[in-house]
């Protein structure tokens, strides 16, 4: 990122007091930037200068309405109004109509007090604890975090609450790890506090590797101080004076914002020696990952921080007794830590009042795939799957039909429409064969082949298997081979049976979480979408039209105009036909490259 955002000038008094002039706030998270937020920023800069309009141009993180990026908030005395899908071409009108003439452009509004839009529900039906500041504050200005009550929880515990009591608050709140396994956070802290050792560490696991999950990235980019505050409180509670954040190198913006946040916290005296003039000292270092999915597993992550190959080891001893450099270490996920300050400020009882009996609080889901409104959804534990996908995210894109939702990434499972009414909590999801995981939800419609999706995940886990234990290293490889054979119509007689047996064996016998959960996508698709496997094996067909070797391309007689475009694009001369007459594809020659279908101007070619 070559551009730098001009900082809001921080006043000495009155943190975050709004200046009277107008503000234009642009969402500059990774998705906003990818959608062209910098071009919009430049356009605003030029337009404001040209029209001599006094307005402050500011940035914020991701609010989670990813399907509306680029998002621009305009703050005037009449209130805050958000415009969505903003392009540089729209900027001039926003400035002239909204800022100069004080007439908001209603057609473009996605959110605003007094405006009812199709997007109102997306946020209104959520319950935001972790995402409370994302898209609301400038993540690179610590004063804005302070203005929301930031670092008050830290101050409170440092001055008033003994470490043991902090642990009991977290235990009472019922907070469980948000990284996947759902271990009670308070107990983890307690184990580490009680462990023998002169030196202890707290590690923030920001190695968000699940494809389809990006909530940790959004929190780190949009509200990094909430994670630092959570780490500080955890450090104080367990008796650590040093913390590490292990963050994916694929998240350069998150790394940049963390570095800014850490240096600001140091300047304010929240990090370093004698935090807030108390005897508590604590500092945080960033370690960038180097691209290995298995490093999300805690013992592998420790090995990686120590500079070794990120390979997991047997537990016990658990990191709480012997972790980083052999010292007691507590490892918590980003989302878990971002809950901590809220719990301390609002009380354990208020947190415990949200959610179900065993799963308290909220959970963020990254809902993507074939869904109308994709983005970040934070809801109380125990919300029905249907409410998330249809209520909040608006159902299936292009009015398609829901086929499956893949929850929990490569360790999770694919759930069918019949299970849409289950509630989302650790226990209910585990009972289906999926897992909560980190909270990725990829929605699939009729154009997704479930066998191919299972193969896709196995391809991923097989690639990422570290190779230390045989069941995972060889088991995932053999499973992938079987799945590949099925998607290519070359199934052997006993493949399906063997696949299921092997999947169960790998689950039981693998060393770490990667191998123990890698078979989940296979087992859940076998359980809920077994008929798709049957069609692939017995009929050698892929109804979704995904498995290339099982589909044939055909020209629809009624739509073909005989224009000859397909003939030109076919690399193997498989298409013939006289000009202005219906063409035909010779199946024996066709290599199924799909170029004809891609280029047909009349959509006359389809896969069957």
């Amino acid at each position, binding site marked *: 990122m070559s551009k730098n955002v001009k900082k809001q000038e921080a006043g000495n008094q009155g943190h975050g007091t709004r200046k009277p002039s107008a503000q234009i706030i642009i969402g500059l998270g990774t998705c906003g930037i990818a959608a062209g937020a910098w071009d919009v920023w430049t356009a605003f800069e030029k337009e404001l200068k040209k029209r001599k309009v006094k307005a402050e141009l500011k940035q914020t993180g991701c609010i989670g309405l990813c399907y509306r990026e680029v998002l621009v908030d305009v703050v005037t005395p009449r209130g805050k109004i958000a415009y969505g899908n903003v392009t540089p071409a729209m900027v001039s009108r926003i400035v002239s109509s909204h800022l100069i003439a004080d007439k908001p452009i209603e057609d473009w509004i996605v959110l605003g007090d007094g405006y009812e839009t199709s997007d109102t529900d997306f946020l209104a039906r959520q319950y935001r604890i972790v995402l409370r500041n994302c898209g609301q504050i400038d993540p690179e200005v610590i004063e804005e975090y302070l203005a929301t009550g930031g670092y008050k929880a830290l101050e409170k515990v440092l001055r008033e609450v003994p470490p043991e009591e902090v642990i009991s608050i977290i235990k009472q709140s019922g907070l469980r790890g948000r990284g996947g396994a759902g271990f009670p956070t308070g107990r983890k802290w307690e184990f580490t506090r009680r462990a023998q050792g002169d030196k202890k560490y707290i590690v923030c696991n920001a190695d968000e590797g699940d494809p389809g999950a990006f909530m940790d*990235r959004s929190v780190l980019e949009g509200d990094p101080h909430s994670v630092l505050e959570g780490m500080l409180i955890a450090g104080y509670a367990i008796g650590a004076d040093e913390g590490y954040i292990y963050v994916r190198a*694929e998240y350069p913006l998150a790394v940049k914002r963390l570095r800014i946040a850490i240096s600001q916290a140091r300047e304010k005296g929240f990090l370093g020696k004698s935090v807030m003039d108390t005897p508590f000292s604590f500092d945080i270092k960033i370690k960038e990952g180097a691209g290995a999915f298995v490093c999300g597993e805690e013992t592998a992550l420790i090995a990686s921080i120590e500079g070794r190959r990120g390979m997991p080891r047997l537990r016990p001893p658990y990191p709480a007794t012997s972790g980083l450099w052999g010292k007691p270490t507590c490892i918590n996920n980003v989302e878990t830590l971002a809950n901590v300050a809220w719990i301390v400020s609002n009380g354990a009882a208020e947190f415990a009042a949200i959610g179900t009996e065993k799963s308290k609080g909220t959970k963020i889901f990254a809902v993507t*795939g074939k869904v109308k409104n994709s983005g970040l959804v934070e809801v109380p534990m125990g919300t029905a799957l249907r409410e998330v996908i249809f209520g909040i995210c608006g159902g299936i894109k292009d009015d398609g039909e829901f086929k499956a939702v893949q929850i929990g990434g490569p360790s999770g499972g694919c759930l069918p429409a019949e299970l849409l009414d289950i509630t989302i909590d650790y226990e209910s999801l585990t009972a289906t064969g999926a897992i909560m995981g980190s909270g*990725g939800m990829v929605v699939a419609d009729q154009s997704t082949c479930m066998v191919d*999706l299972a193969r896709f995940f196995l391809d991923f886990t097989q690639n990422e298997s570290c190779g230390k234990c045989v069941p995972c290293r060889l088991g995932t490889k053999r499973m992938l081979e079987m799945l590949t054979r099925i998607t290519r119509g070359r199934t052997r007689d006993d493949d399906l049976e063997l696949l299921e047996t092997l999947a169960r064996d790998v689950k039981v016998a693998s060393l770490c979480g990667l191998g123990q959960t890698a078979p989940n996508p296979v087992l859940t698709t076998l359980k809920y979408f077994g008929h798709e496997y049957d069609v692939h094996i017995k009929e050698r067909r892929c109804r979704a039209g995904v498995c290339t070797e099982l589909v044939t391309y055909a020209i629809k007689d009624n739509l073909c105009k005989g224009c000859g475009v397909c003939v030109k694009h076919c690399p193997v001369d498989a298409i013939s036909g006289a000009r202005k007459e219906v063409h035909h594809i010779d199946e024996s020659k066709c290599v199924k490259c799909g170029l004809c279908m*891609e280029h047909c101007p009349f959509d006359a070619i389809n896969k069957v």
Partner: protein
Amino acid sequence: MGCICGARGRENPHLSRLGEILDKHRNDAGFLIPVLQEAQDAYGYLSEDVLEAISTEMSVPLSQIYGVTTFYSQFRLHPHGREIIKVCHGTACYVSGAEGITKGIAEELGIKVGETTKDRLFTLESVACLGCCSLAPVMMINKETYGRLTSDIARGVIKKYE
């Protein structure tokens, strides 16, 4: 630092930048991965002489360094193109047609995934997940991310870098 000899026992001016990196991390516990990351940033890839110099200077067996560099997908042992194209193959991108995008780019550049064009302009890679799932399919060129791609848009973006 005065001398960074490498294993061959002679001055190598090419390695002076590495000397600075090593000095910075000399007292850090767990220095190896940050050193390799910064060395790769400085040189573009990790050449044999760079790895040998790290081994000698930091007293880490070369075999161990090789083990680490080959374990993590971030490290490159061969030179790459000026622009690195990473096409996301995360779940959301996959179901939205990442394969087609990759195929389109590969055809446009005349290389396969993992290869570099002859003019050393582009390297094409397929990566796990860039975390921009709602803009799927997505690709990253160097540190810029591009979303809502079609084969044609992707080809157009690449043209900008030529």
